[in-house]
């Protein structure tokens, strides 16, 4: 009974991991501060910063006007002067309003005139919550194309905490894609001591020999589920969790595919122009000889995220899709 309690105390949800990372980084480094809509008094639309205003005061937890471009721009300015802003998008979808500041100012300042922009944008993304076309987007594909940005997308509480800390400590602009669907759905033990998950390192979430499923975010859990089912059929999936989308961890990806010779690229982002395309291209370029079959992409169709339940279910990748694709590929 006593040990159970102790263990329970160390088990945290994905959303708690994010709160902890923010709290610990703010306590550790007084340059870290937060900006966003409704993050102060209200504690954020998802309650990630509940209690932060009371703890850190209104100049480190800023409730802002409804103006994403202005907020991100202000974060850039504060970052250049030496602070470490963390901006919350209420939903990742609204990042489109700040697109210009992110791609033209934040991404290019260091390259153009040597000004580092150490800031983080937290973007709660992804579907499965009946959010419809404006509250379910996976906008990461918009940002592959802007050199100077780093993009991360954790799938577990451990990675969520470690990557957010790493992002806050990074001297570059980092977009942190946190998957809303995972917030309260997964839990895991977190170390008590300070730790980071380095940006740019993928993680093999399941070792396997037959097919590499390369994925990130909520889809990691689908891949693990599919792997479970497929063991009975003797198909052994390796699940590579990218964790960082830019810069890509080519080594981990290539060494997995060199071993398995087969790759499934799985994401919740629209198929065309998703990170799956980039990885397929790199495999076809750098790892062509190690491929023993087509590179299969599993991703939603090229449509906005629909609202109604049967539509969203059809839209989102399913465990069954992975199983079917893996069977076909195994037989190739």
């Amino acid at each position, binding site marked *: 009974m006593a040990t159970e309690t102790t263990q329970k105390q160390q088990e945290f949800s994905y959303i708690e991991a994010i709160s902890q990372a923010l709290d610990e980084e703010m306590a550790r480094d007084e340059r870290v501060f937060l900006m966003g809509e409704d993050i102060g008094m*209200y504690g954020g639309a998802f309650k990630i910063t509940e209690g932060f205003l009371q703890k850190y005061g209104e100049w480190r937890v800023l409730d*802002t006007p*409804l*103006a994403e471009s*202005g907020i991100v721009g202000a974060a850039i300015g504060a970052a250049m002067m030496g602070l470490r802003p963390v901006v919350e998008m209420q939903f990742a979808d609204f990042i489109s309003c700040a697109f210009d500041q992110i791609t033209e100012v934040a991404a290019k300042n260091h390259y153009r005139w040597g000004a580092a922009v150490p800031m983080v944008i937290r973007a709660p993304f992804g579907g499965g919550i009946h959010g419809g076309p404006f*509250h379910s987007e996976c906008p990461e594909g918009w940002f592959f194309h802007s050199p100077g940005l780093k993009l991360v997308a954790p799938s577990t509480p451990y990675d969520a905490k470690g990557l957010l800390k790493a992002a806050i400590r990074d001297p570059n602009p980092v977009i942190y894609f946190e998957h809303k669907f995972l917030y309260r759905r997964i839990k895991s033990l977190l170390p008590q001591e300070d730790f980071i998950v380095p940006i740019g390192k993928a993680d093999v979430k399941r070792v396997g020999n037959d097919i590499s499923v390369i994925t990130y975010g909520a889809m990691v859990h689908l891949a693990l589920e599919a792997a479970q089912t497929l063991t009975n059929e003797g198909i052994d999936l390796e699940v590579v969790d990218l964790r960082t989308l830019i810069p890509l961890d080519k080594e981990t990806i290539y060494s997995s595919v060199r071993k398995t010779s087969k790759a499934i690229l799985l994401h919740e982002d629209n198929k065309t122009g998703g990170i799956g395309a980039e990885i397929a291209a790199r495999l076809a370029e750098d790892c062509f000889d190690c491929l023993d079959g087509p590179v299969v992409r599993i991703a939603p169709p090229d449509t*906005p995220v*629909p609202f*109604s339940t049967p*539509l969203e279910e059809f839209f989102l990748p399913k465990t069954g899709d992975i199983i079917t694709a893996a069977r076909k590929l195994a037989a190739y």
Partner: protein
Amino acid sequence: MDVAVIAKEIKRDDLLQMYYYLRLTRALEDRITALYRQGRIVGGVYTSHGMEAIAVGYASALERDDVIAPFHRDMGVFLIRGFTTGEILAQYLGKRTGPTKGKDGNVHMGDLKRGVFGFVSHLADNLPVAAGAALAFKIRGESRVVFAGTGDGGSSRGDFHEAMNFAAVRKLPVVFFCNNNQYAYSTPLHLQMAIPNVVDRAKAYGMPGEIVDGNDVAAVYLAAKRAIVRARAGEGPTFLEFKTMRMHGHSEHDPAKYVPRELLEEWKKKDPILKAEQLLKQLSYGDEPYFQEVTERVKGEVEAGLEFAEQSPLPEGPEVLEGVFAESAGSY
């Protein structure tokens, strides 16, 4: 408002019809809220509870071929433009018979044939769009007008600025309004702007502005009429600030503890339906039995709508793939 002025300026039937729409809006949204609490609604619910006079007032002041880009608390617009309670409830239940066929949810309904633009979550995005519709009318020499809204929160966004400015420079036939309901989600006005009234923003564009009691349907109607007349006469845009109060949470999941109780008490006395009934009584256009009768009637309409919605089919998965591209474009 001076009762004599109202008696002179607004036809009896028009006032009675506005009362009917106030009641219908209230009944419909209360029903939606109840369904939400029962877990029967797909997605979130944002209502105009306590603010019904705005949409009912301005939509009643427009002609049928005028165009509306409603804000997200403007349910009355849909009812006045002929969206049936059945269609609307189908939308909230994600049914195929809703105006978006399940592609989008809740108040995100639109229909060019009925002159209503679908709401875009990204607040203020539809303001430049509204200006563009007005530009079309101006280019074609039509005497039609566009009515387009934002909240106090949305008025902080850059698109608000760009829309207002462009409309003023080109003297476009558009009326912009702001429902100033004291809060943007949890954010009070003083954290959004350093001006006492949102209407102060009109001066930056050389645009006339007016403060209107947003809970007084007659006042809203008459102010809208004045602005519409001005727009139709080619004198350009007007900005109307409708003072009101958000009486529920931001959406129905939000208990809105950040709103002082007294403020709600105070505004409860100014309920737009109460105000409308007082007016009708003063004018001897209506009495308690009449109000009772209307209340019963709209209740019936809502229940009939719910029956329709519940019996309607959900869309089927593959419908996801339909409609990304248009095959043709009409003229409206």
